[in-house]
């Protein structure tokens, strides 16, 4: 191939920009509702208080996570891991039942892209106007529109980044720091980083994230079967497609119900033609269903040429909701949820680490007594202050002394020195002792830990 030929028949294809047309309808309404609920939660939750503190706060320096009335300590991270596993399983379950429901309505990429599209439409107009504006030469009007859109996008991205940091740093204090230009280095970094990610993903990359970057989109086929809900075009009913007027008789013209208006392509946020069959790019947002139903209404045809359906239903079989994989996911999910609820409720809000003093095995006291010294780290994980009683269990010979008085404020960590004494003739070598810690006030919280007590061997 000559150089000239090589240039004229390039195999490179630039990704065409998608200009989704605005759509109204049942599913568009549901998506709007999802946007308001999910982003509402995201932007409002950190501003709400619970028991005098921020309702959701992942306080990394203090190593405490607050979620409504629950406080998670580093020792409780197993619960957060469980929550993540439950979230993942829920996603699998929903995907197996209803297909890409997550992608179409709840994925942050979809939700934020939707908001960025609203801003774009508000400033630049709907599909046709945006195509014309992009194709037109630069003018004062175009500069004004493009600058206004960018200002809105960047402002919204910064607000999003600020809120993100507000989940990790008390948001009211963060707001004051921003206003007084006293934001710390790390806070500035994460605010700008998350703002940039929001702007880049929702404003610039949009559908390309779903098509090229999202691994979940690729894995989903493993969860799909012939009874999974998908968005599909009824080819048997729609073909052959072709233009006509309402008064035309379809049968006479040899046409199906698809009038070839291409509106389903124009509303698609990933720019695909659903009539080509199930495609990996389809995020199941149902915009094509909404617009096609409106066209069918306009033509006085039955709705549902494009619809939520299953492969089985399309091929004339009955859709089975209760299938082995659904049952397995459901049982796993319910068991984990029950386990998590039970274990969170059974949490002992007291933690005690009793570490033997490594400098000396034991101390011989004048009155034929042996003493072992321990460092006690006591954590009050409750939201109330407590005084504690500490005692050695099942060993009347042993006496325990603790200093200072074991008293802790709410969520306080305290270090104490514990001395356990026993008569020299009470035993030999290494003995295991159980030490019980219990609150002296309500509610009763108690925990028993084991420690080694060393005596002379001779």
């Amino acid at each position: 191939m000559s150089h000239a030929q090589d240039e004229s028949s390039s195999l490179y294809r630039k990704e065409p920009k998608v200009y989704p047309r605005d759509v109204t309808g049942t599913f568009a309404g549901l998506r709007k509702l999802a946007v308001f609920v999910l982003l509402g939660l995201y932007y409002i939750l950190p501003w709400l208080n619970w028991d005098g503190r921020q309702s959701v706060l992942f306080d990394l320096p203090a190593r405490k996570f607050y979620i409504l009335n629950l406080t998670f300590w580093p020792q409780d991270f197993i619960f957060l891991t469980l929550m993540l596993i439950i979230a993942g399983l829920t996603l699998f379950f929903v995907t197996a039942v209803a297909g890409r429901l997550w992608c179409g309505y709840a994925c942050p990429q979809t939700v934020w892209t939707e908001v960025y599209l609203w801003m774009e439409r508000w400033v630049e107009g709907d599909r046709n106007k945006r195509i014309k504006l992009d194709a037109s030469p630069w003018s004062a009007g175009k500069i004004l529109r493009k600058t206004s859109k960018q200002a809105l996008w960047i402002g919204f991205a910064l607000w999003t980044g600020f809120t993100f940091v507000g989940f990790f740093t008390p948001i009211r204090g963060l707001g004051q720091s921003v206003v007084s230009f006293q934001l710390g280095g790390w806070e500035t970094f994460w605010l700008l980083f998350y703002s940039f990610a929001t702007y880049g993903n929702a404003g610039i990359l949009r559908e390309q994230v779903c098509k090229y970057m999202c691994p979940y989109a690729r894995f989903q086929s493993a969860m799909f079967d012939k009874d999974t809900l998908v968005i599909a075009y009824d080819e048997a009913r729609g073909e052959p497609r072709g233009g006509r007027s309402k008064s035309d008789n379809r049968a006479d013209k040899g046409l199906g119900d698809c009038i070839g208006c291409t509106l389903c392509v124009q509303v698609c946020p990933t720019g695909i033609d659903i009539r080509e069959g199930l495609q990996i790019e389809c995020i199941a947002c149902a915009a094509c269903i909404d617009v096609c139903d409106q066209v069918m209404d306009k033509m006085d045809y039955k709705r549902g040429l494009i619809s939520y359906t299953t492969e089985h239903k399309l091929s004339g079989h009955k859709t089975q909701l209760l299938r082995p994989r659904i049952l397995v996911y459901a049982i796993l999910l319910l068991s984990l949820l029950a386990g998590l609820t039970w274990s969170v409720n059974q949490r002992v809000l007291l933690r005690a680490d009793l570490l033997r003093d490594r400098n000396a095995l034991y101390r011989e006291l004048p009155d034929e007594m042996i003493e072992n010294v321990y460092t006690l780290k006591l954590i009050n994980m409750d939201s109330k202050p407590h005084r504690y009683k500490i005692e050695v269990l099942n060993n009347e010979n042993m006496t325990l002394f603790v200093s200072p008085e074991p008293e802790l404020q709410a969520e306080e960590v305290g270090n104490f020195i514990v001395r356990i004494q026993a008569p020299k003739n009470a035993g030999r070598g290494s003995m295991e002792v159980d030490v019980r810690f219990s609150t002296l006030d309500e509610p009763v919280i108690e925990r028993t830990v084991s420690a080694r007590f060393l005596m002379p061997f001779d």
Partner: protein
Amino acid sequence: MRQRDWAVVLWIAFLSAASGFFVLFGLIDPLDMIGAWAHKFDIGVRLAYGLAFTFLYLLCLLAAALTMFMIRTGPARGHVEGKGRRPIPEVHDPSQSNPDLDGEDWR
């Protein structure tokens, strides 16, 4: 994925994990980590090195394998005939040959 791809995944993950391992333990002495865990965790130095390398290697393997999977299975970017790539769908004015969908009245 082909066998050669897996070899690349294994080798790149090993190189990344090894680099990460030297940097990590250049900065951290595993002996200092005994009291640093949320739960009591005194595993000894040899096992700490072994477990840390295994963990890093598994993490790097996951990243490398996922990258390979994403590149191999996705539509080939920029190539007109990339795997799974369909021609750009044709669109036109909805009212073209459909006089009842006149202008914006189609809603």
